[in-house]
C-alpha cells in the first residue's frame, strides 16, 4: 500500500494506483476523455490534469492524473487554481470547434463534454473564428452513424477496436486540426462500413455525440429514460445490462459493468434485440380456450381449469413437456414441479449453438442452460426432440419463444401441426390448430424478474423493464397455479399470487 495526500487528506492506496483512480476512490471523478479503464491510458486529451508534488523532491507541478502513479508521500491537489485553470483551458480548446449541436444531439444529458464543461468550464468562448466544418452523417454501416464535427479525438473508439475487440477498423486520418476518425476508404469511394458484433460499444465509449446508435437516433432524450438494471437473455454469458424505457417501450439497452462477466461491454445481439419485446401486436392478453371448435377468451379461473383438465387427461410419460430456453431458475423450478405432478419428464428445448464469437457471445443462445439443468430439467437437443415428437401423444409447451425454438428443430413445425396440444403457455401466438385446447399468456424476458445462471455458474438477477399485458399473470404464477389446479382435481383454486 502507498500513502498519498489528496486535497489535504491522507489516503492509503494499492501500489501502482494512478492518481486518477485514487481520486476516484475518494468519490471524485476528474474530467477525462481518452482514458477508459477498459481501453487503457493514452494521455492525449490532457483534461484530467491535477497538481502533484513528489515523489521525493519533485516540485509541485501540473500532471495528467491518468498516467501519474501514486508514490509514497506524493501530494495531490485536484482543485487548486492552477489545476482547475488547466482543465478549464483544455475544455475551452475542445469547445472552440465543437458544434453547438446539443439541441439535436442524442448525447445531450449524458454527454461528458456538457458535464465537464458545466463543472469546470468558463461558460463563454473567446473564439471569434468560424468553426471547422466536416461531415455530419457518416454512414458506418448498420449500427453506427458518425458526426465528424462533434469528435474530440479522444481515440477511445480506435483503441477499443484495437485493444478490446482486436480487430482494427478505425483510425485517425490526416494530421493536426485536419485529423478525423475514419474507417478505411472503400472501393466505391465511400467509407468502409464497420463490421463485427461489438459496434454498439463504440457509442458507449464515445464521450460525445460523435458515434451514435442509428437505432436510438432521435428516439428519446437521455433524461426521459427509465433505467432498469438487468441481465441479457440472448446468450449464456449473461452480460449485465441497463434496459432503458420511455413511454412503456424499450428505447435502448446498454451494458452495465461487471468485473467478471462482461466488464464494460456487451455484444450487438443482445443490445439490439428488443424490437420483438416492444411489439405488442398479437400478444395474448388473457387465457384462451377452445369452445365449440373456436378459441375463446376467458378469465384465468376458467382458463386454468380447462388447461388443468386437458393436461390431466394427457398426463404420463407420453406427454412431451417442453419449457422455454428463456425460463428463469424460478420458472424452471415451477415447471419441474408441474411436470412431476403430471408424470412427464421436464425438458427444455435448447436452440442450436454456434461457435463463440470474438469476445463475449458464448454461441449458446440459451441464457439459462446451466440454471435449468441444475433445476433438473433435461436439456433436449434438437435431434432428441425430433425423436420425441414422433413418439409423443400430446405436448405441454411453456414460455417465451418455445415455439420458435421448436420450429428450429427438424420435424418441429410438423409436430405443431398434428399433435394434441392441451396447453401452451405462450406470449404471442394464438395457434389455430385443432389440437390446441388452452393457451395461457406468457411474458418475455423483459417483462419478468428472476435469475439466470450463466455459462460460468454465476446466478444473476434479471429485472422486468416492461409491463406485461394488463391483467396477465407472470409465468411463475401461471405455472404454480396450473399445478395447483391439476392437483385439486378440477377445482380451480385461487392460490396466493407470486410476484
Amino acid at each position: 500500500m502507498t500513502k498519498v495526500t489528496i486535497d489535504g487528506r491522507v489516503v492509503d492506496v494499492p501500489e501502482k494506483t494512478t492518481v486518477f483512480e485514487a481520486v476516484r476512490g475518494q468519490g471524485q471523478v476528474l474530467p477525462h476523455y481518452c482514458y477508459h479503464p477498459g481501453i487503457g491510458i493514452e494521455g492525449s486529451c490532457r483534461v484530467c490534469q491535477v497538481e502533484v508534488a513528489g515523489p521525493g523532491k519533485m516540485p509541485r507541478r501540473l500532471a495528467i492524473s491518468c498516467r501519474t502513479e501514486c508514490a509514497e508521500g506524493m501530494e495531490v491537489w485536484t482543485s487548486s487554481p492552477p489545476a482547475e485553470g488547466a482543465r478549464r483551458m483544455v475544455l475551452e480548446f475542445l469547445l472552440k470547434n465543437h458544434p453547438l449541436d446539443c439541441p439535436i444531439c442524442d448525447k445531450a444529458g449524458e454527454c461528458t463534454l456538457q458535464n465537464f464543461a458545466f463543472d469546470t468550464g468558463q461558460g463563454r468562448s473567446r473564439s471569434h473564428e468560424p468553426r471547422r466544418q466536416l461531415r455530419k452523417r457518416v454512414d458506418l454501416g448498420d449500427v453506427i452513424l458518425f458526426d465528424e464535427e462533434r469528435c474530440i479525438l479522444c481515440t477511445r473508439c480506435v483503441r477499443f477496436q484495437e485493444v478490446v475487440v482486436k480487430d482494427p477498423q478505425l483510425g485517425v486520418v490526416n494530421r493536426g486540426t485536419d485529423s478525423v476518425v475514419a474507417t478505411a476508404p472503400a472501393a466505391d469511394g465511400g467509407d468502409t462500413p464497420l463490421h463485427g458484433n461489438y459496434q454498439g460499444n463504440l457509442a458507449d465509449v464515445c464521450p460525445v455525440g460523435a458515434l451514435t446508435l442509428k437505432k436510438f437516433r432521435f428516439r428519446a432524450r437521455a433524461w426521459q429514460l427509465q433505467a432498469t438494471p438487468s441481465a441479457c437473455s440472448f446468450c449464456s454469458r449473461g452480460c449485465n445490462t441497463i434496459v432503458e424505457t420511455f413511454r412503456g417501450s424499450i428505447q435502448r439497452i446498454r451494458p452495465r459493468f461487471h468485473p467478471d462477466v462482461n466488464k464494460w461491454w456487451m455484444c450487438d445481439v443482445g443490445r439490439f434485440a428488443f424490437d420483438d419485446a416492444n411489439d405488442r401486436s398479437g400478444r395474448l392478453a388473457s387465457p384462451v380456450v377452445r369452445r365449440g371448435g373456436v378459441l375463446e377468451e376467458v378469465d384465468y379461473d376458467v382458463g386454468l381449469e380447462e388447461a388443468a383438465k386437458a393436461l390431466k387427461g394427457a398426463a404420463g410419460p407420453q406427454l412431451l413437456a417442453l419449457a422455454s430456453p428463456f425460463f428463469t431458475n424460478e420458472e424452471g423450478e415451477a415447471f419441474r414441479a408441474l411436470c412431476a405432478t403430471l408424470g412427464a419428464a421436464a425438458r427444455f428445448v435448447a436452440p442450436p449453438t454456434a461457435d463463440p464469437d470474438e469476445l463475449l457471445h458464448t454461441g449458446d443462445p440459451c441464457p439459462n442452460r446451466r440454471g435449468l439443468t441444475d433445476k433438473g430439467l433435461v436439456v433436449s437437443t434438437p435431434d432428441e426432440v425430433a425423436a420425441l415428437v414422433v413418439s409423443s401423444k400430446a405436448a405441454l409447451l411453456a414460455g417465451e419463444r418455445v415455439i420458435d425454438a421448436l420450429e428450429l428443430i427438424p420435424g418441429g413445425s410438423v409436430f405443431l401441426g398434428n399433435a394434441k396440444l392441451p396447453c401452451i403457455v405462450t406470449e404471442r401466438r394464438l395457434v389455430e390448430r385443432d389440437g390446441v385446447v388452452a393457451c395461457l399468456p406468457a411474458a418475455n424476458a423483459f417483462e419478468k424478474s428472476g435469475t439466470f445462471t450463466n455459462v460460468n455458474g454465476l446466478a444473476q438477477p434479471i429485472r422486468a423493464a416492461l409491463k406485461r399485458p394488463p391483467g396477465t399473470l407472470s409465468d411463475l404464477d401461471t405455472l404454480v397455479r396450473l399445478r395447483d389446479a391439476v392437483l385439486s382435481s378440477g377445482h380451480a383454486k385461487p392460490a396466493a399470487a407470486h410476484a
Partner: protein
Amino acid sequence: MAERYLLPRLEKPGYRGSLEEYRREGGYEALKKALAMQPEEVTAIVKNSGLRGRGGAGFPTGLKWTFMPPAADPRPRYLAVNADESEPGTCKDRVLMERDPHSVVEGVAISAYALRAKASYVYIRGEYRASFRAMERAITEATKAGLLADRPIHLHVGAGAYICGEETALMESLEGKRGHPRPKPPFPANFGLWGQPTTVNNVETLANVPPILAKGIEWYATMGTKASPGNFLCGISGHVERPGVYEVPLGIPAKTILDDLAGGVRGGKKLKAIIPGGSSSGFLPASAVEKLVMDHDGLKNAGTMFGTGAIIALDETSCIVRATKVLCQFYHHETCGQCSQCREGCAWLDQICGRVENGEGRPDDVNTLLALADGMRGKTICALSDAAAIPVQLAIQHFRSEFEQHVAEKRCPFGNPPMHVHTDGLDDEKRSELVEIVHSDVLTLLNEGKSTSGKGMAVQ
C-alpha cells in the same frame, strides 16, 4: 579566428567526401582510438567534454548516454540519429551529410560502440534526397572497409513531418506509424525503438564526437564557453548580405555573426529583429541583439533559448505580425493533433494572427493570443505546443504596438497583401450541404423523434 574542426575539410576545393579523402584528412583515427577503449570509457570522455546536443534542446550528450542500462542488461539497444532537420531557419545538418558524410558516419560508429548499440538508424527527412544518397555511399564504403564491424548503420527516410524531429515521434515514425510523440516517462533509454533502450542524437552532435575522441577534452575546452564548449554550425538567413552556414564557437557575440560573417543587414537597411535559434526561439528586438551572446546561457538570459542556433534576420521593412503569422501557420500545419491544447491552439493562433495581419483584428485579439499561448505552455505530451506559443508571446512582448496598430488601422501598415489562412475541414463545395443536413435533422427530431406513436413504438 577561432579554430574550426567541422567545415574546413569539406571546404577544401574538390573535396567530394569519399572514404579515401576522409581518411587522408585523418578520418577514422578517432574510431580506432575508441574501439581500443571500453565503451564506458568513451562515454566518460564525451560526458566530461561537456558536449551539448545540437538538435535544439542542448542536453549534455554524455549524460544522456549514461541513461542507457548497464552493460549486463541483455536487451538489444539502438542509436537513432536525428537527421530530420526541419526547424525553420535550420540548414546545417545537411551540409555535413551532403558534403562530408563520413564525419557523420564516424560519429555514429563511435557513439554506437559507446552505447553498445546493436544497430543505428539514421532518420533522414524525406526531402533531403542529396543527403540520403551521400550518406548511402559513405555507409557502403565504410561497411566494405570493415569499419562498422557488427554494428550496422541503416538509413531510414521520413516523409514531411516536422514533429518527427521530436525524439519519441521519430521513434514512432521509424517503427512505421504516425509521428505521434509518446508521453515521457518512460524515456527512450528505457523504452525506445521497439520498446528497447535507445538513445536519439542529432547529426551535428555526433559529428563532434570524432574530434573530441581524436584530440581530447582539453583541446575541446579551448573552444566555446565552459557551460557550452565547442563550435556550432550557425545557419544565418533572412535579411543579411551573405546568408550561409558558418562554423563558430559557442559564446560568440551575435553581432559578430551578423555583421562580420554575414555582411550585415542587406541593402544597408536597419535590423529590426532576429529569430536567434530557429523558429521556436521566437523574436528578439534589435536592441537585444547588441549584447547577445550565442550560447545556451546567453539566450536563456535574453528570455529565450539557443535551440538550433539558426539566426534569421528581419530588417526594418519586415512586419512582425506577418512573420508571426508565417510561424503560426507552420505549427498549425505541423501539429500532430494528439493534445487538445496544441491541436486547437495552433490553429487558433494562426487564425487570429491571420485576421490581425489582414486588417480584421479585434481589440481583444492580443490578450486572447497571450491567454492561448499561456494555455499551450508546459501541459502537453511534447514541446511543439510551447514552440508555437513562444514566438507569439515574444512577438507581443517586444512588438505589441505593431499588433495594436494593425488592429486600430484595420490593415497591415507595411503594405503586405492579405495572407491565406488554412481552413480546417471540408472545402467550400461541401459546406452548403451541411446546412441542409442540420436543418433536416432538426425537422426529423421535431416531427418523428418523440411525439408520435408510429413505427413500432406502440405501447398499449
